[in-house]
């Protein structure tokens, strides 16, 4: 516990501490369980590896993959699931499986396979954080990996076609979002008042989908209609990640939040929320 825990992961943008789902899951879990994590953001120097990101390094161990990292943190006594009953622990596993089977293909498609999104947003963002000449190769490889995963798990052998599965995976993802929304209901987190592993996973998958600005946004539009899931993401961002989003802008951000609350009180939230949101996003982008 005294040894420093270092996490290397992809960086943030659009108001998020990280744009990469798996990195975000680990960062959220570390915040929930109180693990002191030193985050090393991957940038375009040659320092550090980009292979199996996120990677947790301690004095004697290197752990990759979110599930293994979370297990390792639990063994080090950083356990966010302490208060859960056995049945809630079982539910956690089941819902994580639901996320991976139903939501992940559509998220991968939105980020890495949909041509408009990939070429205008994802590829430039990742390429700017990878040193030349790897920046020419690695994003393409990640995109092919995502396409492979979608086709092999959903397509039909032997001639895997993307068109057949596209409609199906988006339908499944929308159904999954609806199910999550029903399950969350009006409570703050999935299992009562304290966040747990499931909250970390849901946040990790949903937050990039919610915040990143894409040209082709059908899944994002559906998510924005489920207000309790949006509130869930915003709550976690505000409570656990606020100070990492540009300290010098905090007063500006706080003043905007005050203005927003005033508008809620005056009942003008609906009309002005878009404007306030846009200005916040602009200011954060400028600050970052």
């Amino acid at each position: 516990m005294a040894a420093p825990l270092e996490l290397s992961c992809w960086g943030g943008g659009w108001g998020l501490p990280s744009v990469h789902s798996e990195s975000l899951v680990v960062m959220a879990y570390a915040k929930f369980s109180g693990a002191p994590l030193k985050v090393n953001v991957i940038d375009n120097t040659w320092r550090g590896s980009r292979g199996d990101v996120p990677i947790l390094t301690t004095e004697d161990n290197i752990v990759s993959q979110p599930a293994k990292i979370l297990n390792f943190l639990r063994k080090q006594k950083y356990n966010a699931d302490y208060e859960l009953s056995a049945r809630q622990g079982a539910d956690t596993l089941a819902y994580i499986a639901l996320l991976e089977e139903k939501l992940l293909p559509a998220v991968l498609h939105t980020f890495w396979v949909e041509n408009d999104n990939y070429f205008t947003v994802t590829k430039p963002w990742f390429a700017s954080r990878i040193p030349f000449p790897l920046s020419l190769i690695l994003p393409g490889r990640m995109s092919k990996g995502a396409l492979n995963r979608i086709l092999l798990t959903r397509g039909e052998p032997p001639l895997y076609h993307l068109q057949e599965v596209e409609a199906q995976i988006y339908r499944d993802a929308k159904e999954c979002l609806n199910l999550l929304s029903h399950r969350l209901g009006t409570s703050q987190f999935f299992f009562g008042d304290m966040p747990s592993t499931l909250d970390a996973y849901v946040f990790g998958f949903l937050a990039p989908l919610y915040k990143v600005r894409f040209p082709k946004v059908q899944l994002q539009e559906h998510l924005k209609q489920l207000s309790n899931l949006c509130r869930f993401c915003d709550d976690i961002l505000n409570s656990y990640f606020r100070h990492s989003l540009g300290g010098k802008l905090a007063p500006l951000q706080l003043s905007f939040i005050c203005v927003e609350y005033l508008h809620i009180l005056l009942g003008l939230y609906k009309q002005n929320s878009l404007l306030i949101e846009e200005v916040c996003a602009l200011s954060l982008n400028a600050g970052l």
Partner: protein
Amino acid sequence: MSLVAEAFVSQIAAAEPWPENATLYQQLKGEQILLSDNAASLAVQAFLQMCNLPIKVVCRANAEYMSPSGKVPFIHVGNQVVSELGPIVQFVKAKGHSLSDGLDEVQKAEMKAYMELVNNMLLTAELYLQWCDEATVGEITHARYGSPYPWPLNHILAYQKQWEVRRKMKAIGWGKKTLDQVLEDVDQCCQALSQRLGTQPYFFNKQPTELDALVFGHLYTILTTQLTSDELSEKVKNYSNLLAFCRRIEQHYFEDRGKVLKKHSRWYF
């Protein structure tokens, strides 16, 4: 199937009642069928029994190629062919029979989540064991998968299928797992199922749902199939409420209705 075709099929399905001569196709029971396909087929049979719908099981060597999606089992009802448990449940619902109508939204979410857990962990573990574990592949899988075909087709088809499954395992991140890690995952999955089941007769208390059918299909097949080692079935046997659950469904929905599931059932109690 595209969205338009699916809507069309649902409409036609709703129009006709369930016929007497509905058939379920799977591979040859004795020599060809593998663990994962047997589990899927048993799950569908259990589901249809729970809905009280008559079905005749027909074994064909080329069942996998006859199926519209390439996966077994598939059912032939009237003039429609539907494969895999998910679409079959939808199809049966369009005909007016459903096991999960009494559940509220949160329970339906839970049911779907647990079904994905079984597919994600148990089914993938079964596929791993069959196609990526060298001992099992050599002794059992290759011989069984190619058995209806003459040389050299039996070897070619078996290698082709193995290559396909290994590609899939690599894509989802199971390519680097060892057998022990896979068995750990199976244990975790069984523990979750056991904790969810608790002391209830079925997962959603009094009435079985498609989740019960799916879990029964997989667990029963794991418990009663002879593999190179007993490690997989040992993991399931650690949980006595799951064993009781399988026994209860076998008795209630198969033996009591005169259907024999396996000629030589290996039960360890």
